[in-house]
């Protein structure tokens, strides 16, 4: 391949197109730097960023003085603006940590105090009556709660997709299916050996999520110590999406923030996660036991939650750092390697602020801030969302482009035009799940039963490939075999 003969040369290579890598690449695109975003899978947001609680935490959980605490509070404050610039749905719905005993009530007060120290705004402890008035479906066993009005919900993969699109529009190269297998450092230039050829860069930002320890180790830095923690979730149908309006947490334990019940920005109800450390890094299988735990514990907070309205279940992985804090900064072994590792929860909430911290660490290593990109545009235009338009807007749109008049996904009302747009967008969709995350086609109650084959057909047509080369999520996840006899 071309790239193997003439390795592309960059100022900065960001490894990992999760929310941290994408937000960092976007920020880098506001400077005069040649940046490449390197991703080992077929799409962005394929790790922790695609499967998590989709929460913008207020910032009272982390211990005062930690990077987690600082970046969470900052990130939470930045999120509404970032989401507006990137046209990503965000909702400031507030969160509640619910206590079920006097002992848990004292935890609530501790969290309140911690929140005050962390600088969390609009935090208050509320009693049972106020809680029940806010959330009528909450368990009658609840004693009181911590109300955090600054908390919100956001779609994590949409944020990652939008940030990548915006970065690419501002000049960043996106390389998919380029898994880094080794890195050489010679004369101040790194050569990344990848599954899709060599890439050269002066600086590396290691945002490889659960594999950030592996990347650091390639350059002799074995300081990154991670445990992969799996969490299982259920997504419930939109018909029960308004069961609660706030994000409902239970009191935190050593393993995390416990099982939550929350609405999503798309109107579904999300329950989970469990927390189980796993030995195998990419194992996103759900387990009968894990799903059972989610079912039982979610009902403790909100008794009327029932998985009879479940439309799917999934497992998300988080890279838990054994130090219990984010690892952001230049590697002690090689200062041209910037670590952005161990960014577990509240990583999504911290992402806008983490990107700033990461880029600052890069500039420190570079010995100064880079020049600004004079043509940087922070705005990513909102893609067509047919389902949100008025009848007049719909009619006008179809008159302009008839592809918006053909509904492909009937559960979510997604048009052919939106699917074509998702394929041809910067760093666009290449597989069925990529279409699903960008447009919601197949995300509804039939889970692609009807539209799946049509999406395969459109992908094949637009990418000029035969249908049996179209995959569910890259690799060998092909959907079809040979033609019938």
């Amino acid at each position: 391949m071309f790239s193997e003969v003439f390795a592309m040369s960059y100022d900065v290579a960001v490894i990992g197109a999760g929310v941290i890598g994408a937000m960092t690449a976007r920020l880098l695109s506001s400077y005069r730097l040649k940046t490449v975003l390197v991703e080992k899978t077929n799409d962005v947001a394929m790790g922790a960023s695609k499967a998590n609680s989709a929460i913008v935490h207020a910032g009272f959980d982390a211990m005062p003085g930690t990077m987690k605490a600082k970046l969470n509070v900052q990130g939470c404050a930045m999120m509404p603006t970032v989401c507006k610039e990137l046209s990503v749905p965000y909702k400031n719905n507030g969160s509640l940590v619910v206590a079920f005993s006097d002992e848990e009530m004292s935890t609530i007060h501790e969290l309140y105090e911690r929140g005050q120290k962390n600088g969390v705004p609009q935090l208050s402890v509320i009693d049972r009556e106020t809680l029940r008035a806010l959330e009528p479906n909450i368990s009658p066993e609840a004693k009181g709660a911590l109300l955090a009005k600054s908390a919100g919900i956001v779609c994590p993969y949409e944020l990652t997709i939008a940030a990548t699109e915006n970065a690419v529009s501002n000049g960043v190269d996106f390389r998919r299916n380029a898994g880094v297998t080794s890195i050489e450092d010679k004369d101040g230039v790194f050569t990344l050996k990848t599954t899709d050829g060599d890439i050269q860069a002066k600086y590396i930002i290691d945002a490889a999520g659960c594999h950030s320890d592996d990347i650091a180790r390639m350059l002799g830095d074995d300081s990154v110590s991670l445990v992969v923690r799996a969490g299982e979730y259920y997504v419930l149908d939109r018909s029960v999406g308004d069961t609660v309006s706030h994000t409902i947490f239970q009191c935190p334990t050593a393993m995390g923030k416990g099982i939550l019940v929350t609405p999503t920005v798309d109107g579904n109800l999300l329950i989970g996660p469990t927390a189980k450390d796993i030995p195998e890094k990419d194992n996103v299988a759900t387990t009968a036991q894990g799903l059972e735990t989610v079912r039982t514990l979610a009902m403790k907070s909100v008794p009327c939650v029932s998985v009879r309205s479940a439309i799917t279940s999934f497992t998300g992985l988080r890279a838990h750092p054994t130090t219990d804090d984010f690892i952001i900064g230049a590697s002690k072994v090689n200062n041209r390697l910037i670590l952005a590792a161990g960014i577990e929860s509240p990583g999504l909430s911290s992402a806008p602020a983490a990107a700033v911290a990461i880029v600052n660490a890069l500039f420190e290593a570079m010995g100064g801030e880079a020049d600004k990109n004079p043509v940087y545009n922070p705005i990513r235009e909102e893609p067509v969302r047919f389902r949100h338009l008025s009848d007049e807007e719909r009619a006008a749109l179809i008159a302009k482009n008839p592809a918006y008049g053909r509904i492909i996904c009937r559960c979510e009302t997604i048009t052919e035009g939106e699917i074509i747009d998702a394929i041809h967008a910067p760093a666009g969709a290449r597989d069925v799940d990529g279409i699903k995350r960008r447009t919601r086609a197949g995300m509804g109650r039939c889970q692609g039963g009807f539209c799946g084959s049509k999406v395969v057909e459109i992908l094949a047509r637009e990418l000029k490939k035969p249908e049996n080369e179209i995959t569910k999520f890259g690799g060998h996840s092909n959907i079809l075999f040979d033609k019938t006899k």
Partner: protein
Amino acid sequence: MIKYDLAVVGGGPAGMAAALEAHKCGVNKIIILERAETLGGILEQCIHTGFGLHYFGEELSGPEYADRFIEQLKDTNIDVKTDTMVLDISQSNVVTAVNKTDGLLQIDATAVVLAMGCRERPRGALSIAGTRASGIMTAGTAQKYVNIDGYMPGKEIVILGSGDIGLIMARRMTLEGAHVKMVCELMPYSGGLTRNIVQCLDDFGIPLKLSTTVIETHGKERLEGVTIAKVDAHNQPIKGTEEYVPCDTLMLSVGLIPENELTKGIGIAMDPVTNGAVVTEMRETDHPGVFACGNVLQVHDLVDYVTMEAQIAGRGAAAYIQDKAAFENAEYISTTPGNGVRYIVPQKMNIHSREDIKLYFRVSAVYKNAKVVLEADGKVISSKKKVKLAPGEMENVTVPADVIASLAKDSTVCVRVEE
């Protein structure tokens, strides 16, 4: 806004039969709105035979059965719009639809027939543990890939659920050269038609494993295998009975769900058992002028019954268009499912009806040599002996016109199984 007497939502067997029947009854301006590219609905991908034995007295393939109605439509002035999706039906029966050529369509209809059919229950609704590999699909999706798109969706196949589509696909994939390893069924009996078990499994030596389910899927990219296990009387997997079965495809035939999003959007009363609307003997819902028929009303076992039900709805809609006042004078009583009966359609019947009313129902378990008993006001009207009753097969019993004439506002009509 375009004015129509009748708008039919869905151009499958139910929608076509309802429109044709209304036309036959003298309704002038009728439009069928179909979301697919062609009329015929799911019949288009059902290339096996077995359709029409009851209605036409001959054995037809799905497309042939559909064709009989498509041909009849050509000889009428019924308007048909395909590739057209209905987005909304208003309280005043204004139907909003969308397609590539007309853009946004608004149809002011006197009456509406809902005939949207049903969809398959997906994997997500089942909570099967394991990976999210490709190769897990509903049997109907697989059927479309093979019969319409001409691609093989799998080679080594396990089917979960012995509903009719699952059984049909076991045979279809075998004929295409795939290896169907087994059909697993959670219940101690099959939910499919007996003739399909014989012709699709037994004839090909495909094992049907009853009281067995899939508890886990394996494989990171493409499916590599499933773990199956026996289940106890509460449908819970029994420890120690787990068995790993290598396969590249898991097909699901685990139930059909009527597609009632539009129905619920209007605020129509639903039957929690059928997941369809509550209807009268005319198949009118509780929203005046809106009728429902076919699989959107109740999941049928045979298309022949869909046709017959749609004709009732078509006649009902015609009667409504021609004489609304008669509908206002109706007095309804509820039909009650008794012992062993899961549900009855229609759920309501007009005591002023002058015609026989057929009550369709399904039983809740397998019965041998049992009696189907029809009671009115506690009095046995009929009692019919049945060699076999199974949940997979729809049954019916007729309430004669003379019995209806004797009913009052507080009367009860009940169907039950007597062992």
